[in-house]
């Protein structure tokens, strides 16, 4: 029971992080039908920007811990969004009219570029986040002690996802995003500025990814320059589980993958944890590429 509760909460916390990253994949895919390979690197960029603000700049020294974290998060989200916007502008927009696979290769190139830029700027070694950001206390849940940090991470991702949920379902811009995802041509005819929708998606996705980067730094205490690749692949798996292009699916897929990993690591094997995730990715893509939520759609000949 102890292992179960610990892994349940841990899985949900990590799953929330996966979900935040997966949202970036799924929103871009929904509009552009493009897997944004560089998205995982934007997440890593966010983690390093957070490191710079918290450690190198030492925001905690100027403000209180709480305010410093808040300022860091806001700045990281803004800078990641900017990086996402530039990425779209430079690497994807010129390829809007060319064939899909050219855009995929360009995305791959951008991802390689970002990862190596991060390595050159911040060095290849592990970097540590401040250990004393959150008080080292535990909460009691079902008779178990749960670290506060775990609760904060999970709560943050849930709040952000709820905000996004309302944005997508209740606002005009959210409706424009959903409409463009279903049929870009029709959306254009209805007077929706699809270029703006694309820009918005490339701002929101990376902002969420950057936030997730900071959360990983705070949660695990250390970051590495190639973390974007692993987390990117896992978040993509989460997006695929929920049906890529499906925003609610990405949230559910992220949490689900977090749980699968946590329980897989605890009850099957820690060493094979990542391999289990990749097997899930392969099996879902082969058996049910539209994800677990969506109906199968017939392909037009």
């Amino acid at each position, binding site marked *: 029971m102890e292992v179960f509760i610990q892994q349940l909460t841990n899985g949900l916390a990590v799953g929330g992080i996966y979900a935040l990253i997966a949202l970036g994949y799924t929103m871009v895919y929904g509009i552009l039908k493009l897997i944004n390979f560089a998205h995982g690197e934007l997440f890593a960029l966010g983690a390093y920007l957070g490191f710079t603000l918290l450690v190198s700049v030492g925001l905690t020294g100027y403000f209180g811990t709480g305010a410093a974290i808040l300022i860091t998060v806001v700045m990281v989200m803004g800078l990641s969004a900017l990086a996402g916007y530039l990425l779209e502008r430079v690497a994807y927009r010129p*390829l809007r009219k060319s064939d899909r696979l050219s855009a995929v290769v360009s995305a791959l190139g951008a991802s*390689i570029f970002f990862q190596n830029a991060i390595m050159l700027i911040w060095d290849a070694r592990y970097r540590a986040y401040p250990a004393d950001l959150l008080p080292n206390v535990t909460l009691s849940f079902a008779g178990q002690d749960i670290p506060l940090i775990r609760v904060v991470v999970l709560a943050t991702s849930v709040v952000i996802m709820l905000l996004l949920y309302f944005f997508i379902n209740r606002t005009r811009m959210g409706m424009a995003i959903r409409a463009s995802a279903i049929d870009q041509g029709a959306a254009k005819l209805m007077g929706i500025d699809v270029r703006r929708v694309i820009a918005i998606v490339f701002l929101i996705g990376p902002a969420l990814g950057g936030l997730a980067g900071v959360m990983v730094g705070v949660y695990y205490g250390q970051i590495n320059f190639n973390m974007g690749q692993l987390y990117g692949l896992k978040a993509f798996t989460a997006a695929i589980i929920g049906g890529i292009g499906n925003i609610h699916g990405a949230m559910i897929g992220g949490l689900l993958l977090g749980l699968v990993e946590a329980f897989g690591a605890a009850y099957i094997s820690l060493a094979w944890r990542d391999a289990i995730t*990749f097997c899930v990715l392969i099996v879902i893509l082969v058996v049910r590429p539209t994800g677990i939520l969506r109906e199968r759609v017939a392909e037009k000949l």
Partner: protein
Amino acid sequence: MIASISPASSKWKNWLLGAQIVGAAAFFSLPQFGLGAYWLDVLNAVGISAILALSLNIILGHAGMFHMGHAAFFAVGAYTTAILNTRLEWPIFATMPFAGMAAGIFAVAVASPIIHLRGDYLLMVTIGIVEIVRIALINNVFGLTGGSNGIIGIARPVLFGFRIARPQHFFCLIWGFAALSMLLFYWLEHSRYGRALKYIKEDSVAAEGMGVNTDRYKLSAFVIGAVWAGFVGTIYASKMRTISPGSFSFWESVVLFMIVILGGSGNQKGVLLGAFLVSGLPELFRGLQNYRMLVFGAALVLMMIFRPQGLLPPKTRNYTLPEPLAGKFP
């Protein structure tokens, strides 16, 4: 639209062919002219990449399948040789067919369920496969792969009593195998088989509708590429004498993918050029070694925007009609 072949251009072609032969001969005599061991090693590394990229070219360049897990097949070949050699003390060249076979069987197992997948999904799945293989190697699967330290003490290859050990020996072995691979792949490309792969790349629905068994051809392209990567694994294992999971990472696959795409997918000369650019050129600018992947990442983006077909795109194949048709339709 219709290319004409005038006597002048055929003379020019002979010159070009002659220059290529002289160039190749000069290349193969490099060790004789006292090229240092360091540069020979660089050329050997380029050669290994080149053969791997040529085998990937069949899958990615000709059949148009976005496969980014080629390092997995390379790893299966190298580990097969290492295990057979260190455990059973088989001579290196005796392990080679088995290395190719193991990689080929592995390809059938992993590729059959995924060849239907769309380009971008296939890319993701093949990345997943190469990672799974690496994790399996690190976890010392079947107790044979030696975990993250890998396998040490692999023997040198012996050919007709001659022990291949020095860089110049490997130079001849690697580039000889590269030349053989290019010849065989050239023939393969210029056959019914190579045409079928091109039809699939152009439009796989139309290819199937014209009677091409697209599933079988896609799978067999994977198998040929894998078998060849397995052969290269044998050479690599005996050259390094020590192999570990680190040599077969995701980045190895990325580099091979880049060689084919940047050089010109579907064109052997393009792939060869790509191998020199991506694995050779950085050695000339050692100080900039760290910027290598940064530059190539940016190059991929720029290439897709300005020249998506690669530096040397494949030419349309030239056919010579048998007589009397050749006279009738110039």
